[in-house]
């Protein structure tokens, strides 16, 4: 093949060059990679995956099952692109592939974007029916999105010379697209494929934007649209089918419509063509190419060739009726050299460069096939309309109906006059020509997956009767073209070969209709923008102080604050010591905070929490916990009463959202009779814990007017205070067992107050402490961390929180009364001490009673928290142990990889059992 003239799609004023398998070629703007290769006489593009047979371009579009290419270089290299759907740009680098892609390491500079779209009517397909539908739908002002897969409007009108209103059809296309461009509520997107159909008329579109080599770092090259439409019109047209015959995979065997397409759109034609057709439409290729001076001969499968065939003969084209291609002959390179035919009793062979196969059209329905509720309106060739006039009318009607259905009128559309019209109907149905020698091992049903008729036979012989098993046994229809060219043929040929049994049908298509690059699916969610990051007001100060951060959900929380040269263990020990012996400060701003207000606030909290909170006095705080309905520990926190009808509740960081939602769920759905409101105030407040024997001194210096004395501000007191000049709240709560104040100020002042506290603490050597030290300090006091020291089946009783349970009703109470919760062998939270005080057991280590038992061993518990304690001068930890409280004082064993450590089960409170230190 070569280029004889510019086509309607190519621009001779815009030459470009590209590289293919290392060689530079010239082409024109408007070329696809496939047309660029064909124009340069490149006939072999890749090779077949299983047999290594050479493969060329067989189509001009989406259904391409041969011509695969790796496009681009380095990290921007993209595997398995179909040459027929890649638009050439200057400098593009590509190479041929079989059916396996290559991944290339390196930075990919390209950008991929996403966008949401909304419209009244989405029209999928920019051919005659789709254009007509979009035009009619938008005439009355409805918002319309029209998408077309290729770079050109008009669909088949680009390759099929038709007259509309007495002028070439492309003039009609121009007129319609100009009208659409002038309507402000129309978004018309070319190079855009509808890939996935979502529920409620959502459609995912893939838009290909102009590319450069190398890609620039700013302009996106692809955009993933998620469109919500009120109505969807599908006008995806029809694809021409091939016919399966022996050696039907040779480079040079092409779809007849594709041959016509390359000629009209790209000006490319072969020197000699044999047309093998089952229908009238195929003759278009013969007529159009003969005009270009190509030698064309026709094999018509029908007994009677009809008027169109006669017309061909009248134009001097040799036509054989009742004729089929029985096979092909190749030259030494494996390229098509001749078509072997059988016409009645006559057998013969016609040399040809291209064997154009016209097997009839088949609606392209892979998008609406994704819709079990059939909510898409299908029009035009996709709906089996086989004449242009019908397609246009169908489109116009659908457009009007869609606009009216969503409340927009439409001027009575003028009905275009088509003529003369061609019949595109399938003609005689012919899926396969049996191999004359009976060898079906070279009759390819799925060219991509190298599935042959012999392969289908084998599956049927094995007992396969479902088309889905056929697909899985043979892999027919699983290629990257989504089986567009193979699925129907596989089902039909298999049915045929089974004889009398019912047709097998077509295997189910799965989304998307078009492969989508992973990078496009991720869009902007990569690198620093991968997922939202939450930081506290004092975060800049933590960064400046060299904090090592830990991800806690989306939050960044300081894990510890190492000094130069310090290890984590050293830093944690220092931070913990500061709390026990001096003073230290921690940013607790991520704790969830919920304000609960209303006349029934106390009753509401009583129903949620284990303990009674209605008895809490104003200005007081209480440690409280709640269960799930199944009686397991959900969350804990501090509940503060600010006024008779006003509570301030804290939750763990991880459960802030779920506790809030839990409250709202019960408030709205079960207890609408309570007058109570919950409001999340997590980010209204910055919260800092100042802990240690010197805490009072530090806080007093920033809150000079507040009475912080033991008597004036007792443990679990809460009061408004001015802190560093800022109005806020102070609470005497402690997670370390030491004297501690929780300072709460509006978060807009958070950083300033953090700095003020640090400044006030500096003379006393105040340290910052992070999550590791917190965990250590809490464990020394036996204060559990929900989710770390509890499991999904730990009850509050198991966790040692049974003392909270009051004699009132609360959520989860019913479950706690079940027998299973009274069993003595439940896993209970206890403390433990390794016999060797230098050994720190790993968290997660399992306990056994009998260390000599062979595996599988009977495990009786596991370590939930484990630390070396600078305060205790030894290792210790918390554990959930079966019947743990009865084992206190007993020795159990922790078999580790290399040794077994004896461990004494002890009470979980290791430090200051009397609680004397919290008052300072």
């Amino acid at each position: 093949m070569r280029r004889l003239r510019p086509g309607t799609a190519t621009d001779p004023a815009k030459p470009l060059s590209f590289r293919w398998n290392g060689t530079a070629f010239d082409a024109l703007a408007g070329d696809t990679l496939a047309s660029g290769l064909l124009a340069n006489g490149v006939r072999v593009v890749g090779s077949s995956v299983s047999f290594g047979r050479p493969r060329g371009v067989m189509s001009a579009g989406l259904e391409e099952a041969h011509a695969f290419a790796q496009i681009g270089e380095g990290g921007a290299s993209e595997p398995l692109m179909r040459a027929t759907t890649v638009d050439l740009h200057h400098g593009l680098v590509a190479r041929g592939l079989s059916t396996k892609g290559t991944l290339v390491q390196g930075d990919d500079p390209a950008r991929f974007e996403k966008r949401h779209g909304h419209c009244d009517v989405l029209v999928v397909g920019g051919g005659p029916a789709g254009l007509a539908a979009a035009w009619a739908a938008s005439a009355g002002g409805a918002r319309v999105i029209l998408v077309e897969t290729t770079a050109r409007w008009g669909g088949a009108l680009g390759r099929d010379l038709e007259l509309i209103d007495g002028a070439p059809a492309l003039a009609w296309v121009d007129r319609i697209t100009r009208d659409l461009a002038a309507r402000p509520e129309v978004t018309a997107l070319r190079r855009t494929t509808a890939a996935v159909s979502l529920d409620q008329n959502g459609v995912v579109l893939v838009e290909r934007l102009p590319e450069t080599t190398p890609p620039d770092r700013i302009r996106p090259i692809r955009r993933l649209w998620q469109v919500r439409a009120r109505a969807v019109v599908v006008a995806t047209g029809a694809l021409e089918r091939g016919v399966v015959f022996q050696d039907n995979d040779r480079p040079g065997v092409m779809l007849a419509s594709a041959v016509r397409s390359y000629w009209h759109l790209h000006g490319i034609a072969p020197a000699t063509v044999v047309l093998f057709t089952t229908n009238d439409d195929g003759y278009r290729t013969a007529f159009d190419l003969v005009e270009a001076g190509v030698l064309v001969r026709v094999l018509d499968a029908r007994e009677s060739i009809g008027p169109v065939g006669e017309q061909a003969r009248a134009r001097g084209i040799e036509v054989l009726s009742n004729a089929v291609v029985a096979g092909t002959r190749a030259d030494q390179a494996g390229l098509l050299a001749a078509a072997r035919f059988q016409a009645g009793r006559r057998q013969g062979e016609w040399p040809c460069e291209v064997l154009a196969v016209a097997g009839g059209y088949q609606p392209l329905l892979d998008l609406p096939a994704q819709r079990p509720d059939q909510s898409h309106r299908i029009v035009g060739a996709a709906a089996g309309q086989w004449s242009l006039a019908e397609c246009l009318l169908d489109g116009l009607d659908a457009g009007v109906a869609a606009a009216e259905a969503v409340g927009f009128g439409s001027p009575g559309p003028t009905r275009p006059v088509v003529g003369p019209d061609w019949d595109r109907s399938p003609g005689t149905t012919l899926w396969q020509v049996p191999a004359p020698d009976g060898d079906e091992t070279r009759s390819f049903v799925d060219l991509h997956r190298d599935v042959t008729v012999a392969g289908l036979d084998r599956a049927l012989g094995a007992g396969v009767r479902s088309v889905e098993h056929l697909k899985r046994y043979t892999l027919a229809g699983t290629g990257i073209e989504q089986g567009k060219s193979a699925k129907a043929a596989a089902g039909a040929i298999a049915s045929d070969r089974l004889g009398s049994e019912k047709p097998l049908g077509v295997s189910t298509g799965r989304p998307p209709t078009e492969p989508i690059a992973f990078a496009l699916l991720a869009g902007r969610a990569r690198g620093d923008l991968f997922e939202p990051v939450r930081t506290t007001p004092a975060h800049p100060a933590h960064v400046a102080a060299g904090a090592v951060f830990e991800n806690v959900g989306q939050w960044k929380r300081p894990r510890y604050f190492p000094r130069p040269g310090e290890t984590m263990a050293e830093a944690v020990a220092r931070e913990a010591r500061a709390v026990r012996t001096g003073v230290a400060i921690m940013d607790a701003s991520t704790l969830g905070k919920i304000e609960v207000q209303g006349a029934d606030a106390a009753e509401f909290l009583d129903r949620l929490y284990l303990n009674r909170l209605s008895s809490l006095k104003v200005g007081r705080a209480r440690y409280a916990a709640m269960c799930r309905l199944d009686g397991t520990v959900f969350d804990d926190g501090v509940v503060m009463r600010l006024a008779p009808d006003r509570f301030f509740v804290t939750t763990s960081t991880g459960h802030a959202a779920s506790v809030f939602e839990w409250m709202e769920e019960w408030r709205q759905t079960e207890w609408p009779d309570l007058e109570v409101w919950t409001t999340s105030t997590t980010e209204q407040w910055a919260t800092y814990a100042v802990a240690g024997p010197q805490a009072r001194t530090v806080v007093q210096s920033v809150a000079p007017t507040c009475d912080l004395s033991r008597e004036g501000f007792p443990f679990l007191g809460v009061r408004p205070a001015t802190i560093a000049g800022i109005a806020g709240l102070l609470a005497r709560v402690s997670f370390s067992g030491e004297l501690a104040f929780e300072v709460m100020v509006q978060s807009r002042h958070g950083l300033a107050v953090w700095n003020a506290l640090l400044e006030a603490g500096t003379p006393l050597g105040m340290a910052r402490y992070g999550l590791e030290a917190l965990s250590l300090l809490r464990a020394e006091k036996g204060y559990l961390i929900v989710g770390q020291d509890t499991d999904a089946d730990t009850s509050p009783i198991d966790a040692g929180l049974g003392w909270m349970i009051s004699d009132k009703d609360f959520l989860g109470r019913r479950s706690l009364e079940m027998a299973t919760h009274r069993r003595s062998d439940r896993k209970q939270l206890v403390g433990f001490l390794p016999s060797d005080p230098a050994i720190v057991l790993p968290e997660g280590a399992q306990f056994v009673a009998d260390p000599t038992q062979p595996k599988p061993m009977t495990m009786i518990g596991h370590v939930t928290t484990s630390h070396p304690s600078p305060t205790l001068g030894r290792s210790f930890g918390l554990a959930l142990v079966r019947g743990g409280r009865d084992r206190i004082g007993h020795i159990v064993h922790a078999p580790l990889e290399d040794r077994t450590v004896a461990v004494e089960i002890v009470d979980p409170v290791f430090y200051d059992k009397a609680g004397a230190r919290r008052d300072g």
Partner: protein
Amino acid sequence: MLQIRCPWCGPRDEPEFRYGGEAHLRFPGNEADPAAWARFLYYRDNPAGAYRERWVHTAGCRQWFHVIRDTTSHRILGSYRLDEPPERAR
């Protein structure tokens, strides 16, 4: 991706909501017998077809409401507020 009509905020995409399972369940109270309690805790209707279910508009107004959805097609037949009967679904 479903699109769900919040009775308060209008149609929104599914990620704005959280699913709450079967609607119109009655909390049996803490006096329920073991079988009734187990039923309430663990058993939910699971029909193939129209299903009355609860959703909450977490990213929006945070209101719980009801939806009738066909579990075989994901067609949504309507949504209605907690204080409305299913017949008011739209």
